[in-house]
């Protein structure tokens, strides 16, 4: 969308586009908009909308049957007002409107939006520079993670205090729902947001994303979505778990609207970000960067974007249908009037399982990306890593019903879905093979990022093995809906996903902030949370084996011990995460200044200066060799050749 139509950005369809004539004046209202005006706009429009709706809706006194709906309409209006007002206030609609009337943004304005000469202020604006967007994503994600982590601590506190009800059941239920969805959203963007935006364009040797303004749009839509989710906590909350199965969701308090609108907005944001990333990766790789020369992390991000792109609309439409059930009284999911609860489950899990891989694959790719750097040897069997990712993507669309083994929906479908689900362990196994192959005989440079990678592999192994139990229908008949499932997906999403994100942050920190992440404090944080993590979730496995259902506030006293241990572990995780956070904060403020390539990496993003200049590279790089060209030629190669020659000679002599 940017108007500085350098050849790179506008040759998307393979056509050279000349610099267009400039229409419209530079400057204008756009330059004065920032996060503050966004907030003002959002709050103002929300207030107006809510107030207007409250007046227009027949009041409860005059129409008793209508009364329960009034908060629904008002809250809906407030939320919609917030989103539109916020996006208006931050200036998201300026570009499209000017496009329609044909007076495009001038070159000077485009540079202004790119954050030129803005200093720190650019982080508060609708900035199109991918590096600024990456940092913004990082901050927002960390805030959301903190919020969801806070809820996690409260949940574990409640479950640890088995002798009393610390919170009322409604509040507890809304906590688990909000924790779940906030974590899922945060984890979905945790890698693709900050690292995908900041690193990928540099890694492939591009100046920016393909559509810089869409980049900003996706970020600010995400920012607009988050407050809605949090606000729902105060409106009765999401009392239905993160999956908000219908029709329970249509019974919930009005807070459910917050969830539904969050998902709808978030899905738009994800779709935009995905298209952007995919287009960038497809069209803007540096000269000479063929597919076999593209780093594995780029593959991971691409795969994740692709899955996000096709999976999220299902979720979005599930929520739109749910919203329409609630607000307009339609009956998609209301069995009383011919709706089907299985429809929701299908739509939901059509998202639900690909989404897990949306989270896992980037972190796995980070792990694989980091290992060559710290082991100083090439990635083992690059083709296999790609094959693994491709396999996961290909299969991910065909496994959704393994969440529905026990729903009674088409029992006969259990057989094929069991097959496809267990098949997916083969491509995942490829990734593990690549990891251990890269470890094989390598000299380990034991720095913080590599340690996080070890944690990822360890957790992923446990998560993967327990996943096989759950993919198997007979075992799932016992484990479905129990704490075992909770422990399993925490091992995958948190153990592999979040620790992978930590590895990525630790690794790319010097490039993103210009400073080194404090090794000692970071390591303490990492290992504390790792140990706490094992304690928490392994004892949660035990609770699941004993037969504790998930999402319960109270449980039989036979589960007490495993829950107490689990709670203690959770506190340890919390402390570890806070220490890691402290490492980030202190290093960001006053860490050691990093050189441009502190890890001695060979990939493109480290070849440019730190801090990264506005357009990344003074001269666009040209790639001439495969990635991960580390290590010395294997000394045994020659030896083996000698053996071969020797043998050949012997064979020949015979």
């Amino acid at each position, binding site marked *: 969308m940017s108007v500085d139509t350098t050849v790179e950005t506008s040759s998307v369809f393979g056509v050279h586009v000349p610099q267009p004539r400039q229409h419209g004046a530079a400057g204008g209202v756009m330059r004065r908009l920032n996060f503050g005006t966004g907030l003002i706009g959002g709050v103002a429009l929300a207030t107006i909308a809510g107030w207007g709706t409250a007046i227009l809706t027949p009041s409860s006194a005059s129409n008793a049957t209508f009364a*329960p709906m009034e908060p629904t309409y008002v809250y809906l209006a407030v939320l919609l007002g917030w989103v539109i007002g916020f996006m208006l206030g931050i200036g998201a609609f300026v570009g499209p409107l000017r496009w329609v009337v044909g007076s495009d943004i001038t070159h000077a304005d485009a540079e202004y939006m790119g954050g030129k000469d803005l200093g720190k202020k650019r982080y508060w604006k609708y900035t199109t520079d991918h590096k600024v967007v990456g940092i913004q994503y990082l901050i927002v994600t960390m805030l959301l993670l903190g919020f969801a982590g806070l809820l996690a601590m409260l949940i574990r506190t409640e479950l640890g205090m088995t002798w009393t009800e610390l919170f009322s059941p409604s509040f507890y239920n809304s906590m688990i729902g909000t924790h779940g969805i906030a974590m899922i959203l945060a984890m979905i963007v945790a890698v693709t947001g900050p690292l995908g935006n900041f690193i990928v364009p540099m890694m492939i040797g591009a100046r920016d994303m393909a559509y810089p303004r869409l980049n900003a749009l996706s970020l600010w839509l995400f920012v607009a979505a988050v407050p809605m989710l949090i606000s729902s906590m105060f409106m009765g909350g999401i009392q239905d778990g993160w999956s908000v199965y219908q029709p329970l969701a249509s*019974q919930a308090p009005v807070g459910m609207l917050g969830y539904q609108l969050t998902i709808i907005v978030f899905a738009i944001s994800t779709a935009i970000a995905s298209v952007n990333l995919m287009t960038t990766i497809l069209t803007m790789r540096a000269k000479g960067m063929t597919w076999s020369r593209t780093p594995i992390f780029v593959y991971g991000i691409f795969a994740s974007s692709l899955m996000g792109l096709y999976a999220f609309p299902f979720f979005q439409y599930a929520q739109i249908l749910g919203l329409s059930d609630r607000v307009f009284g339609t009956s998609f999911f209301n069995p009383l009037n011919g709706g089907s609860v299985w429809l929701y489950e299908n739509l939901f899990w059509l998202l639900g399982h690909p989404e897990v891989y949306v989270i896992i694959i980037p972190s796995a790719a980070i792990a694989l990306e980091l290992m060559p750097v710290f082991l100083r040897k090439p990635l083992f069997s690059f083709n296999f890593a790609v094959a693994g990712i491709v396999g996961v993507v290909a299969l991910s669309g065909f496994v959704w019903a393994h969440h529905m083994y026990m729903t009674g929906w088409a029992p006969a479908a259990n057989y094929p879905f069991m097959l496809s689900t267990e098949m997916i362990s083969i491509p995942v196994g490829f990734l593990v093979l690549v990891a251990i192959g890269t470890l094989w005989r390598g000299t380990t440079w034991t720095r913080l990022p590599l340690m996080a990678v070890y944690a990822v592999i360890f957790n992923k192994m446990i998560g993967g093995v327990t996943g096989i139990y759950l993919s198997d229908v007979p075992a799932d008949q016992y484990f479905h809906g129990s704490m075992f499932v909770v422990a399993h997906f925490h091992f995958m999403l948190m153990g592999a996903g979040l620790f992978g994100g930590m590895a990525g942050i630790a690794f790319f920190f010097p490039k993103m902030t210009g400073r080194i992440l404090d090794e000692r*404090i970071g390591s303490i944080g990492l290992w504390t949370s790792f140990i706490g993590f094992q304690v928490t979730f392994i004892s949660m496995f035990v609770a699941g084996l004993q037969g504790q259902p998930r999402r319960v506030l109270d449980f039989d006293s036979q589960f007490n011990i495993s829950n107490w241990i689990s709670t203690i572990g959770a506190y340890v995780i919390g*402390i570890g995460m806070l*220490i890691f956070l402290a490492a980030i904060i202190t290093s960001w403020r006053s860490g050691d200044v990093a050189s441009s390539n502190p890890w001695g990496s060979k990939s493109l993003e480290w070849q440019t200066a730190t801090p990264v200049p506005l357009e990344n590279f003074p001269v666009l790089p040209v790639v001439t060799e495969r990635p991960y060209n580390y290590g010395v030629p294997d000394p045994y190669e020659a030896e083996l050749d000698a053996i071969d020659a020797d043998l050949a000679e012997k064979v020949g002599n015979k």
Partner: protein
Amino acid sequence: MKKFLVTLVTVLLGGAIVAGVGVFNSVRQEEPPVLVANVVGTKKAPSGEEMPHAELYLDVYPNSSSKVPQPNTPSPINNVLLAGQPFYHPSTSLQVPAHSLVTIHFRQFDGGGQIYNPYFSQVHGTVDGTMKWNGKEVTEIKPDQVGHTFTVHQYPESDQPYFFMSIPLPMNKANAKTDKAGYPVDPQTISVTFMTGEAGSYVWNCEFPCGDMYQEFGGPMQTRGWMAGTFDVVEA
């Protein structure tokens, strides 16, 4: 050194935030004050044995009005969201003595209709399996004339006795004479007597769909202080 100080501060601050939010929400939880059934004498159990006897008085109102009781709950948000919904009064957190006969007297001011599951239009778990409805003993009422139910059920503890009790509260006719506040002048009166065993914690809720949203089972049906609550049996 300074770095470690910052780390310590971060951890303490994080812990403080968690604790603060936890305590705040714990204090603010939507629990009405506990209504205790005190032992007032003894009564003869069906086995002929004299047992301590306690009494409780509960009312069910169709909606709150300025003249009459309000739902007894500390949550201002719920008071807004659930305005005009039926509720139990004076409290939904009940406490009764163990090893006793307990009598609960209900006054039911609300209307009603068809219940989903006829099982809950029968009386379960009381002494003799009966309840006294406007003076006469009944074991069940018509499923299409239920106003509310008072259904106590199991708490997930295996080391406390199984306890289940369900009483239907018949509805008032739509044309019943009402006072100025809109409540029937002669509410349905129901009293039931049941025996408690060992101490334990249970929950109770209404099984008649009288809330809002899907299946009329949302809102007050899922909020303590309205149509659901706790039921503790404690050693005297």
